[in-house]
């Protein structure tokens, strides 16, 4: 059994084997909508190889990180609930 790595997803603790990608940790946390599209639709991993950009999450405060390309690190803070922008209405 590989060494375990502890990190957080949306503030909750998740433990994964060393070498697991952030996308796996997010999935283990039970999250299926990794991010929201510009019109608020849920998005999640499609290609798993860094090409589709659908699995982007916020890692340690840095937005738009492709979760399928970044290995988990101890203490990492992952968020999938970044602010949803409402672009469907006129602000005035």
């Amino acid at each position, binding site marked *: 059994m590989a060494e375990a790595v502890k990190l957080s997803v949306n503030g909750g603790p998740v433990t994964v084997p060393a070498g697991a990608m952030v996308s796996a940790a997010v999935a283990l946390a039970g999250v299926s909508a990794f991010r929201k599209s*510009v019109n608020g639709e849920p998005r999640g991993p499609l290609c798993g190889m860094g090409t589709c950009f659908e699995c982007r999450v916020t890692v340690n405060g*840095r*937005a*738009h990180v492709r979760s399928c390309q970044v290995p988990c690190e101890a203490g990492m803070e992952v968020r999938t609930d970044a*602010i949803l*922008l409402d*672009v469907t209405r*006129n*602000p*005035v």
Partner: protein
Amino acid sequence: MRASYDVAIAGGGIVGAACAAECAAAGLSVVVVEPGPIGGGATAAGMGHIVVMDDSPAQVALTLYSRQLWIELARELPADVEYLPCGTMWVAAGEDEMAEVRRKKQVYDGIGVKAEVLGPQALAEAEPNLRPGLAGGLFVADDSVIYAPCAARFLLDRRPVERVAQRAVELTRDGIKLHDGTAIAAGITVNATGAWAPELTPGIEVRKRKGHLVITDRYPGFVHAVLIELGYLKSAHSTTADSVAFNAQPRRTGQVLLGSSRQYGAEDTAIETHMLHRMLQRAREYMPGLGELTAVRTWTGFRAATPDKLPLIGPVPGNERLYLATGHEGLGITTSLATGRLLADQVVGRPSAIPCEPYLPGRKQEASHG
């Protein structure tokens, strides 16, 4: 398509669309000839900044009048126009530029434009991603941002305006000759083809001025107002050298739109890496954190520049039936609505809210600011 129209407009950018909308609102029959998508040229390439500029009294008059027309229209704009009343922050790097801030403030006070002087701390609080140590800024609250191609489409859709999806190959004395040889007869013909206007009306003083832009992924709150370095004015004024200036804009999507560059004599639409590099270097000098953001697209466009930095709005000397509506340089989105209004005023012979003379094609042009 009818046999003849009161007004035939070549060019379906935001200026052509605004002219069409105003002529139609005045009860005239109008056709717009545009081979590409509506607002697909410089209208789509530009930043969509609605801003009062004070290079000259005539520029103040036109931008202020037009901004007022945008404010009046704001509530009617559909969501896809992404109207964002975020204001403009003119950023002063040092004390010499604070003197310019105070000069601008005085001008704006004199014309009733809300403007607030910020010291270094207030600027840092308003825009925390600017680098520390800047001298201050001038915040102009009623400036805004739109997504201009959708605004152009909205202007055409709200009035009865016909569209012909063809290229205008010639503006004749009696209308527009199309690519397929068809002639559209019109009482008044308008050349609103932006930087390409000299191809249809040879001899007019309009030159292409190339610009580069970059847009990032979504980083809501990274910038709050449209940020422009006061050095921008030097860049915009240069009539010869290639120049860049820091200009960062928030979009409704949370994206950051980054400019700007200015080049004469560049006809190729390709991205020029050295210009892009200079532009982004300049941006990072003001906002070091920009280097951490992901860019999703870069592109270029062509401004229609005139020697005196004012557009050409009105009839061509010697041909009272051929009008120009071009030469808006970097202010075409801002001044489109006023352009449409002033053009329609002249076509139907009614008084204008501001004098038309400074923008008439027949004026004597002197290059401003060397």
